[in-house]
C-alpha cells in the first residue's frame, strides 16, 4: 500500500511572524506596531501644533501663494519667463537652472575625474605628478571659496562689454559673459534634422553590424570613414536641396549690453567650473581606487594577448572597476547637485536662490517653501541614485555577477 507523503506544515504563519516581529516573534511585532503608532502620533501632533500656532499668530499658511504673481525678474531662464508669471513658474525656472548646472557639472566632473585618475596611474612621471597635485590642491580647498575665486577673481577680471574680446565680431567675451550668435530655424531646418538623424541611426546600425562581424568571424571592418561621410554628407545634401537650416542672429553692442545672440552668464560659468573641478578631484580618487582594485594579473593577461594599454583599460579593467566605482560615484553626483545650492553666493538663479530666497522673503511663507525645496532636493537625489543603481544592476548582470 502506498504511503501518502505527509504534507509539509504550512510555512506561512511562522514566516509572517518572523518577518514582522523579528527574532522576538509576536511580542516583537506588537512593540514595533506601538513604535510606529507613536511615531505617527508625534508627526500628527507636530503638524497640528504648527497649524494651530500659525493660526494663532495670524501667519498666513497654505499653498495659495503659489498662484500669485511673482513680480520680479530672473537673469537666466530656460523657459519663457516674465515678472507677471506666478510663483509656480519661478519654481520651475529655479528647478531647471539647478538641474542644468547639476547635469552639466556631473558630465564635466566625470570626464575630468576619469582623465585625472588615468593620468595619476600613468607611467609618465610628469603627468602622474600633475594629476596628483590637482587632486590634492582642489579637494583640500573649501568649495565656496573656489566658487568665489572663479567668479570674483577670474571672470570678473574680464573686460567690460565695450572692450570685450571678440572673435570675428560674432563671439564676444566680457565680464557679462560669453555671447555667441543665436541660431534661428529656417525652412531647411526640418529636412536638416531628419537627414542628421538618419545618418546617426545608419551609423549605429553599421557599427553594430561591424561588431558582430568582428566577434563572429574576426573580420575587422573600419566603420568610421563611412559614418563620418554619412553624418557630414547627408545633412550637406539637405542644405543643398532645401536651403540653410538656420540663420544666425549676431549679437551687437547696444547701450550697456549686447543685444541678440545667446549668452552664457558668468554666474553659470563660475558655478559649473567650480562644481565640476571640485567634484572631479574626488571622482579621480574614486576611479583610481576602483582601477587599483582590479587585480594586476588582469592587466598583464590583457597585455599578453597583445592588446594595447588603452584597450586593456577600456575592455578589461574599467568594466570590472565600475562595480567598485559606482556607489561612491553616485555619492559624488548627489553631492554636486546639493552643492549647487551655493549658487546663492554669486547670484546664480538656482532653486534655493529664486524660490527659497526671493520667493520666501516676498511671501514670508517659510515653512511651505522650505518644505517644498527640501522635497525637491530629496526627489532629485532619489532619482539620481535610482538611475545609478539601475546602471550598476545592468553592469553586474552583463558581467554575470
Amino acid at each position: 500500500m502506498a504511503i501518502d507523503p505527509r504534507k509539509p506544515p504550512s510555512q506561512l504563519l511562522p514566516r509572517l511572524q518572523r518577518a514582522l516581529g523579528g527574532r522576538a516573534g509576536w511580542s516583537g511585532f506588537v512593540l514595533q506596531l506601538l513604535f510606529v503608532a507613536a511615531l505617527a502620533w508625534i508627526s500628527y501632533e507636530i503638524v497640528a501644533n504648527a497649524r494651530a500656532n500659525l493660526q494663532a499668530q495670524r501667519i498666513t499658511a497654505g499653498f495659495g501663494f503659489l498662484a500669485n504673481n511673482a513680480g520680479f525678474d530672473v537673469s537666466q531662464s530656460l523657459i519663457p519667463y516674465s515678472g507677471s508669471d506666478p510663483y509656480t513658474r519661478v519654481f520651475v525656472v529655479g528647478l531647471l537652472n539647478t538641474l542644468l548646472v547639476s547635469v552639466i557639472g556631473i558630465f564635466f566632473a566625470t570626464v575630468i575625474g576619469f582623465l585625472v585618475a588615468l593620468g595619476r596611474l600613468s607611467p609618465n612621471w610628469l603627468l602622474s605628478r600633475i594629476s596628483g597635485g590637482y587632486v590634492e590642491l582642489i579637494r583640500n580647498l573649501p568649495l565656496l571659496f573656489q566658487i568665489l575665486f572663479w567668479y570674483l577673481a577670474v571672470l570678473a577680471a574680464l573686460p567690460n562689454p565695450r572692450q570685450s574680446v571678440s572673435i570675428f565680431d560674432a563671439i564676444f567675451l566680457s565680464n557679462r559673459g560669453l555671447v555667441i550668435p543665436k541660431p534661428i530655424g529656417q525652412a531647411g531646418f526640418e529636412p536638416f534634422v531628419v537627414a542628421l538623424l538618419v545618418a546617426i541611426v545608419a551609423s549605429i546600425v553599421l557599427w553594430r553590424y561591424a561588431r558582430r562581424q568582428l566577434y563572429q568571424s574576426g573580420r575587422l571592418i573600419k566603420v568610421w570613414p563611412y559614418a563620418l561621410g554619412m553624418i557630414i554628407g547627408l545633412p550637406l545634401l539637405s542644405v543643398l536641396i532645401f536651403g540653410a537650416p538656420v540663420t544666425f542672429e549676431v549679437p551687437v553692442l547696444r547701450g550697456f549690453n549686447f543685444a541678440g545672440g545667446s549668452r552664457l552668464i558668468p554666474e553659470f560659468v563660475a558655478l559649473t567650473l567650480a562644481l565640476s573641478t571640485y567634484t572631479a578631484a574626488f571622482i579621480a580618487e574614486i576611479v583610481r581606487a576602483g582601477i587599483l582594485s582590479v587585480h594586476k594579473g588582469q592587466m598583464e593577461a590583457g597585455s599578453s594577448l597583445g592588446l594595447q594599454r588603452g584597450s586593456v583599460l577600456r575592455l578589461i579593467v574599467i568594466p570590472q572597476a565600475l562595480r567598485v566605482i559606482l556607489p561612491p560615484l553616485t555619492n559624488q553626483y548627489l553631492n554636486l547637485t546639493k552643492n549647487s545650492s551655493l549658487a546663492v553666493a554669486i547670484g546664480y538663479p538656482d532653486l534655493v536662490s529664486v524660490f527659497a530666497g526671493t520667493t520666501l522673503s516676498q511671501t514670508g511663507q517659510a515653512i511651505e517653501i522650505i518644505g517644498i525645496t527640501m522635497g525637491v532636493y530629496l526627489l532629485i537625489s532619489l532619482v539620481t541614485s535610482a538611475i545609478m543603481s539601475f546602471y550598476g544592476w545592468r553592469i553586474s548582470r552583463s558581467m554575470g555577477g
Partner: protein
Amino acid sequence: MKRVSLVVTLAAAAALSAQAASAQTLKTVKDRGMLSCGVSQGLPGFSSPDDKGNWTGLDVDICRAIAAAIFNDASKIKFVPLSAKDRFTALQSGEIDVLSRNTTWTLSRDTSLGANFTGVTYYDGQGFLVKKSLKVNSALELNSASVCVQTGTTTEQNLADYFKGNNMKYEVIAFATADETVKAYESGRCDVFTSDVSQLYAERLKVANPAEHVVLPEVISKEPLGPMVRHGDDQWFDVVKWTLYGMVGAEELGMTQKNIDEMVKSDKPEVKRAVGTDGNLGEQLGLTKDWLVRIVKAVGNYGESFERNVGSGSKLGIARGLNNLWSKGGIQYAPPIR
C-alpha cells in the same frame, strides 16, 4: 547652506513654540533683563558694529531707546544681525523681541507675517547708484543695463515694475547679502546697484573710490522703514510705537540730550506731561513715569539721533528732507503725548 538651515530652524521654532505669540513680551523682557533686537548685518548709519563691536545707527537707537525706557540702561540689549531673508522668521519664532532693521512697511508684510509695523523711523525710496564714468544722468537712460540687487527685499519687485513701466530691458543679478551685491557692482558685473537711497549712500562708503559713483536723482518707490513686533501683544506694540513717537515728540517739544535735566524742571504743561512730573503716562504704557527722560538721556530726540547717525554729523551726510518734522517741511509727526 548655513543660511537655509537657519531659516529651517527658525521656521520650525516659529511653528512649535507654544506661546511665542500671546506671551507678554514686556514682562518676558523685564524678567530676562535684556532686550533682544534684530538688526542688519552691517548697514552704516542704520545698524552697524564698530571696530569694538558696539552697534550704532538709527535703527540701533530705537532699540537702545526701548531698553533705556524699560531698564534705564541702554546697554541691556542683545543685537541679533539678520539677513533680509531671515528677519521675519526670527521675529515670528520669538528669537527677537523687536525687528529694527530698515524694513519697508507694506500691506502684505503687515498682514501675512503675523507681525505689525509700529511706525516709520525713516522715509526712504528706491534709487540707483552708477559709476560716474558711464555718464548717465537719469534712470530713464538705463535701458539694457545689468542691475545688481540684494535678494529678499521689496527692491526686486520695484525694479521689475519700473523697467517694465518705462519699456526698458534690463538684466537682474540678485545676491544674498549687501556685501556680495556691492562687490559684484564694484567688479563691473553690473552697471547699476539699486537699493533704498539711504542704503546707496551707506554702501557707497564701502567701495574703493566713493567719489567715482553717483546716486541718480530718480526715486522710484516709497520705502517707509520701521520697526516690527509680533501680532497679538498690544502692550508691547504700544511700548515700541511710543518709543519712536516719544523721540519725535521730544524733538517737537525741544527736549534734547543736553537740556533734558532743565526740561524736567520745566513748568510748561505739555513738557510736564512728557517728562512725567504731571500725570502717569509712562505707567499707562507699563513703563515708569520718567520713560521719555530715560530715552532722551540715552539716545537723544529723533532729530539728534538722525543727525548723529545718517545726517550732517555722520559720514553719510543725508539731508533731513522728508524725515524732518512736519512743522519744518517734513512728514515726521507724532500723535500728542497726553
